[in-house]
């Protein structure tokens, strides 16, 4: 969103409005200036944050010396201009426009779709009553979308929805078609909204002034009892939002003007909240029946009581803890492990790692960062000493050159993608490097659809070009880096011409992009799982860092590195120590100084050896060295690679405690299940991809007997002999401030006031550093950045005659990770109700299949069947599948080979074979989990 007009330049224009001399600041329009001086001028097509369009003509004013009236929303005053908004002439037009619009409302009366129609409000304010004109022929309602009702009989054609869709969110779905009195807001080619390419971000609904676009099922007519400001529970963008609650039920969600979203949301944030009200929520503790022996099979939710019985909290907690204590006492601390969750708050993550370290006595604590950016973080720590992003998305979106590599933010960081698209529309050069095309590519100046797994080649090829053409930043290299000479030698073998055929990208394109990046005055690199989820994920990230060091494209505004964080709190969970090798603040467990600090803070002795990571823990269970596991919020029975192996491991555990909000696949292997609270049911802080610590506030009570996670962790801790008394998340937060000095200056009060505060922030009252590594100073021992050479490592499993296709896993816009939340959302699951395999149309044709036919996919590890979907974005020989669907869990196929540094599995590459299936193949993998809402 553009900054408020006027705040950029300080020019002051004095002009006369209704006889009173007032000042317009900077580029302010007459309407803006009037608003600031509490002078009301009616307006409808104008909305803060959208480009003023001046089409409704409600805000007309008279300007002395001009023939016609002028729209005050578009006109900037000139010095001495005499403007009148309230004389007979101006009022006549203002009221006539309102009357004309009112005459075409349903029943020529107040909007039947919203309680807050701006047309009704202005008509009341100006005394416009029953219109005197006949009504138009009204269009039919379009109720084809599960989330949004389209009632164009209340449409005033102000095009706010169009501007929200096209200019703000840049989805380009809404158009204004036909002409004159037949003009109509359309979706794509005048299709029903539910059949259009609409991504249901709901920005149009938020923009509509009359209720013509509203949440489905007349939610707009419900007046909430209270509104709670909070944060979106989904991705790392960290959009601020407001929950509108009535009767302990979230009715609808509004985007809030947060620093990373400016009111924007995506379909998950706006319509994906209803999972919390799903009848399948766990509402009472469950204990496995003694006769229900564990198998590798997944248990269907409607069969839960065959395997589990209800228990009181007291009994369940005693049972849960007794099992853990028994293992600890018999087999030692190292036989226990914990999985935390990047969806929980900082406070929950902090307490859980403290529980495992202090209560279990081991560093075997990890979470899904291992499946996500572990390799990026290991490369960042190794080279520039900090795992966090250098620049925020908002800042990066101002860059002249934006590289998005191994990421599809339009699907996975939708709101961030809108700002990147805005930048491309403003003229920034957008370079997308991705094997799998996306809507973002339409806006790219360069789209490099490389062969999967060839990133190191491509990036080394770019750096080779930079050195060959002497475009490197010598001063920066001299003053701020080490290891350059050796690095330079290493690049020798990677000329663009040589890597081009491997990557499938013309050498000239590689060179052009290299020059573009190297010579840009500001340049940012955004990357995602396409970089990190490889056996060479750390090498991929090293290349990106080297690229920035080589060109000095780091440490300045709009210039730096940004690994796009997936989960809403993966940054925070990592920061506060939910990682086996480090304590909070990334202090190594093997560093005696760090250990001493935390032993003092926690008043205990700590294990000096790094713990095991997610996939290593699974192996350790197989080898019987880990016997007990406490899982809070993770779903490894869906999220881990090579699921048959992972599920087997879970079934082998002597004692498994699962704390979650639904009966997840992982619960099938539990001994005891503790019903926890969902995001809107608790208060806590969450750190987004931008290092912004943001406050989520409790909006509703948990259902039934479900409890706050912080309470559950403390109850377990108490039973392990730890006497913790944190009565409120703020008390945990106070301890985090001590554990993590970078957040030391953030106070709970400030979070309550500002909702979002950026760290590093050492001292209370500081603003927080939005750009780090300023002046090229890195938090390494010598303050220098380090070049680390990356040799090309082949993916662990290359395609061959038997398994000729490459499978990439990933996500879809509507579904979050393993689907625990989104598959339980009515709207999201209605839009994407089942698994599908994205495949190049030519490849699909070779099987003699069409979109919608069944395709079987098999790897060395498993076999699933799903519907094929022809997708021009896929390159030949590559298929993609989201891993959210239990019916055809993509991770049954994936390879659990690990990156040696980050210990991240290679989700982005494995070899598969495909063959046509039949409908009956569906039965092979169908799981009985029910997702319908009763």
């Amino acid at each position, binding site marked *: 969103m553009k900054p408020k007009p006027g705040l950029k330049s300080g020019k002051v224009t004095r002009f006369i409005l209704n006889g009173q001399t007032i000042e317009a600041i900077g580029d302010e329009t007459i309407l803006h200036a009037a608003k600031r001086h509490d002078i009301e001028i009616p307006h409808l097509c104008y909305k803060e944050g959208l480009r003023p369009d*001046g*089409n*409704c*003509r*409600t805000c*007309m004013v008279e300007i002395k010396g001009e023939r*016609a*009236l002028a*729209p005050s929303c578009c*006109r900037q005053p000139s010095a001495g201009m005499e403007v009148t908004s309230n004389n007979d*002439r101006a009022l*006549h*037009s203002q009221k*006539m*426009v309102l009357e*004309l*619009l009112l*005459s*075409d409302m349903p029943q020529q009366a107040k909007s039947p779709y919203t309680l807050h129609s701006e047309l009704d409000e202005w008509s009341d304010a100006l005394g416009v009553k029953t219109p*005197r*004109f*006949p009504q*138009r022929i009204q269009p039919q309602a379009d109720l*084809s979308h599960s989330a949004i009702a389209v009632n164009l009989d209340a449409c*005033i*054609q102000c095009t706010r929805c169009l501007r929200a869709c096209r200019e703000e969110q840049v989805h*380009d*779905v809404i*158009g*204004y*078609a*036909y*002409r*004159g*009195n*037949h*003009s109509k807001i*359309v*979706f*794509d*080619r*005048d299709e*029903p909204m*539910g*059949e*259009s*390419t*609409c991504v249901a971000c709901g920005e149009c609904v938020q923009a509509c002034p009359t209720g013509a676009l509203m949440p489905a099922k007349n939610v707009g007519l419900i007046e909430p009892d209270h509104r709670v400001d909070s944060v979106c529970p989904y991705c790392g963008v960290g959009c601020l939002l407001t929950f509108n609650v009535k009767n302990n039920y979230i009715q609808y969600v509004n985007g809030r003007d947060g620093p990373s979203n400016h009111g924007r949301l995506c379909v998950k944030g706006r319509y994906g909240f209803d999972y919390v009200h799903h009848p399948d929520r766990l509402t009472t503790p469950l204990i496995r029946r003694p006769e229900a022996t564990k198998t590798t099979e997944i248990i269907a939710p409607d069969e839960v009581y065959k395997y589990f019985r209800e228990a009181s909290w007291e009994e369940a907690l005693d049972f849960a803890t007794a099992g853990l204590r028994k293992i600890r006492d018999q087999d030692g601390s190292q036989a226990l492990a914990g999985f935390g969750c990047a969806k929980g708050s900082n406070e929950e993550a902090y307490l859980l790692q403290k529980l495992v370290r202090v209560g279990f006595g081991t560093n075997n604590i990890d979470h899904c960062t291992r499946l996500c950016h572990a390799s990026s973080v290991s490369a960042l720590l190794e080279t520039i000493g900090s795992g966090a992003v250098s620049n925020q998305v908002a800042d990066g979106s101002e860059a002249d050159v934006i590289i998005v590599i191994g990421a599809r933010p339009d699907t996975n960081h939708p709101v961030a993608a809108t700002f990147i698209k805005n930048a491309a529309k403003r003229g920034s050069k957008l370079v997308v490097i991705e094997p799998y*095309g996306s809507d973002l590519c*339409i806006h790219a100046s360069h789209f490099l659809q490389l062969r999967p797994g060839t990133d190191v080649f491509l990036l080394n090829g770019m750096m080779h070009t930079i050195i060959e053409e002497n475009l490197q930043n010598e001063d920066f290299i001299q003053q701020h880096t080490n290891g350059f000479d050796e690095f330079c030698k290493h690049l020798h073998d990677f000329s663009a011409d040589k890597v081009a055929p491997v990557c499938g990208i013309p050498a000239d394109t590689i060179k052009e992009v290299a020059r573009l990046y190297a010579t840009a005055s500001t340049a940012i690199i955004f990357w995602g799982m396409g970089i990190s989820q490889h056996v060479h994920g750390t090498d991929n990230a090293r290349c990106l860092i080297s690229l920035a060091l080589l060109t000095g494209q780091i440490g300045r505004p709009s210039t730096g590195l940004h690994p796009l964080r997936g989960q809403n709190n993966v940054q925070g969970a990592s920061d506060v120590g939910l990682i086996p090798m480090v304590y909070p603040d990334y202090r190594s467990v093997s560093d005696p100084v760090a250990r001493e600090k935390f032993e003092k803070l926690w008043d205990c002795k700590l294990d000096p050896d790094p713990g095991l990571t997610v996939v290593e823990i699974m192996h350790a269970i197989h080898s019987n060295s880990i016997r007990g596991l406490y899982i809070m919020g993770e779903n490894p029975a869906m999220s881990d690679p090579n699921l048959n192996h992972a599920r087997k491991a879970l079934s082998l555990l002597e004692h498994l405690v699962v704390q979650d909000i639904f009966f997840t696949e992982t619960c099938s292997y539990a001994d005891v299940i503790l019903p926890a609270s969902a995001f809107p049911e608790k208060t806590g802080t969450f750190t987004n991809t931008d290092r912004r610590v943001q406050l989520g506030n409790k909006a509703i009570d948990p259902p039934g007997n479900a409890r706050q996670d912080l309470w559950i962790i403390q109850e377990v801790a108490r039973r392990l002999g730890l006497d913790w008394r944190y009565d409120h998340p703020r008390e945990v937060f106070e301890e985090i401030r001590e554990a993590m000095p970078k957040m030391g200056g953030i106070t709970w009060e400030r979070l309550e006031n500002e909702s979002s505060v950026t760290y590093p922030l050492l001292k209370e009252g500081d603003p927080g550093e939005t750009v780090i590594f300023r002046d090229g100073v890195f938090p390494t021992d010598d303050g220098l950045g380090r070049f680390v050479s990356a040799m090309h490592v082949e993916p662990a499993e290359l395609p061959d005659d038997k398994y000729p296709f490459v499978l990439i896993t990933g996500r879809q816009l509507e579904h979050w990770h393993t689907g625990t939340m989104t598959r339980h959302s009515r709207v999201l699951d209605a*839009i994407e109700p089942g698994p599908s395999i*994205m495949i190049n*149309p030519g490849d699909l044709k070779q099987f003699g299949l069409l*979109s*919608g036919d069944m395709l079987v996919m098999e790897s060395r590890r498993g076999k699933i069947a799903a*519907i094929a*979907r*022809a*997708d*021009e974005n896929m390159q030949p020989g590559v298929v993609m599948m989201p891993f959210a669907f239990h019916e055809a869990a993509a991770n049954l196929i994936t390879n659990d080979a690990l990156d040696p540094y980050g210990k991240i599995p290679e989700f982005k590459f494995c070899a598969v074979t495909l063959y046509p299936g039949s409908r009956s193949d569906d039965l092979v993998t169908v799981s009985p989990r029910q997702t319908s809402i009763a």
Partner: protein
Amino acid sequence: MKRTRGKKGRILGTSVDQKILAGIRELLGDEPRTRDMLIEHLHKIQDRYHHISNAHILALAMEMKLPRTEVFETATFYHHFDVVKDTDDPPPPLTIRVCESLTCEMFGARQLHDELAGTGSPGIRIQSVPCVGRCHSAPVAVVGNNPIENANKDKVLSAAQNNDIEAGLPDSITYQDYRRDGGYQTLIDCVSDKYNRNDVIKILEESNLRGLGGAGFPVGKKWSILKAQAHPRLIAINIDEGEPGTFKDRFYLERDPHRFIEGTLIAHWAIEASAIYIYIRDEYAGCRKMLEHELAALKQDPPCDLPDIHLRRGAGAYICGEESAMIESIEGKRGMPRLRPPYVAEVGLFGRPTLEQNMESMHWVRDIIEKGPDWFSSKGRNGRKGLRSFSVSGRIQKPGVHLAPAGITIRELIDEFCGGMLPGHEFYGYFPGGASGGILPASMGDVPLDFDTLQPHDCFIGSAAIIIFSDRDSARALALNAMRFFESESCGQCTPCRVGTAKAVTLMKQSKWNQDLLKELSRAMEDASICGLGQAAPKPLRCAMQYFPEEFD
């Protein structure tokens, strides 16, 4: 490529029909896929397939890397594109367009339409359309691209049956002939520094040549404004002559096309512009073909270094005659007028300072430079200066383009140039400036006709399209005809025009007009509409009420 989500679409994914895509690629050939070419490309599809299907839109959107909705909204804005949904049948291959605007209606267009529609000929579609620019030979029907003047059912059907559906090439002065008779010498003199740029602009200023598209902005002044703008500057020539009753541009184009091209090239030199865009209405198919030919001849053997000259084709939208709407249309968008400021001279085509001129304005440039400013300014009558090309139609003996002194009165025009009224018709009233210039009664037949002289009477001369009606006609009915025209040609952007024209038509169809409400509505439309269309639309109805009160008793 975006994913379609509907029940069907979810399964079908994002495939575009490869055969259709290949067809589109072949049709577009090597031409640029830039946004500004969208309307040109839509024409190619419409010409080839006689309609534009949903699949065409999807394929074209893909090929041009445009959102499909932007292709759709642009295609559906223009009436010459038949966008057909999957569920609908494509239209018959041949369309007969019957003009329904003022003069043609006076001469029985509605009856002609109904007769043609009544024949129910298979493979033919009959459409009522706004002015096709041949009002001197009303009524007019256009069979395919072939205009039939003084049309009747038999003439029209026989053209259709004989497949006589192409526009004939006008018998205009060719490039060779124009050069032979001294054409382009003035341009050569300009570019070879025999003239000084400022002197040429001064000559134009002194000649009192004003923009002849309707607004009457002094041409020399416009050029000097452009000269002060940043480079690159562009030129856009408006031949989207659509004001009902106007046909003067076509008149000159059909006879002497190089005269305006030379004027334009002189302007290009004088303001140091880069490229030239010429926008011609789609209804002038014959002229367009001729222009393509003549521009090719010019480029083949140029009198001097030529800039890029782009010929762009309208697609059936009166509003694109509005200068900023025309610019939007050249950019490949819907023809929606822009808000001003900024003015086109500052921020015009592709965001560049743009000299936009009516074709006829450029037609006179060469003569004025060669003959001197006085040659033009000394013509005039009743204290006015210059010449006006009046497009005269209606109940007169000699309809046509009459080059007459500015300031001439309607009575003088009828008597001296038009051979008097048609037998049996008594002069009753006239439109002095097409549908949007208002209506005056015979009692006001002595008002000098020129820019600025009609404003006191709530009228204006505009493009000097004079429609003369008689005691057999009704001002009230003609006012309704005009309002229907504005309703159908309103772009739909602003409320006063989009809703106002529609409500006005409904009110004006009632047996008794709600005059007070119509006056209130008119005031808001005039004050609050974005462009001249909505601002001028109420003029005929106001004039009808004011000057023809007897029709409302």
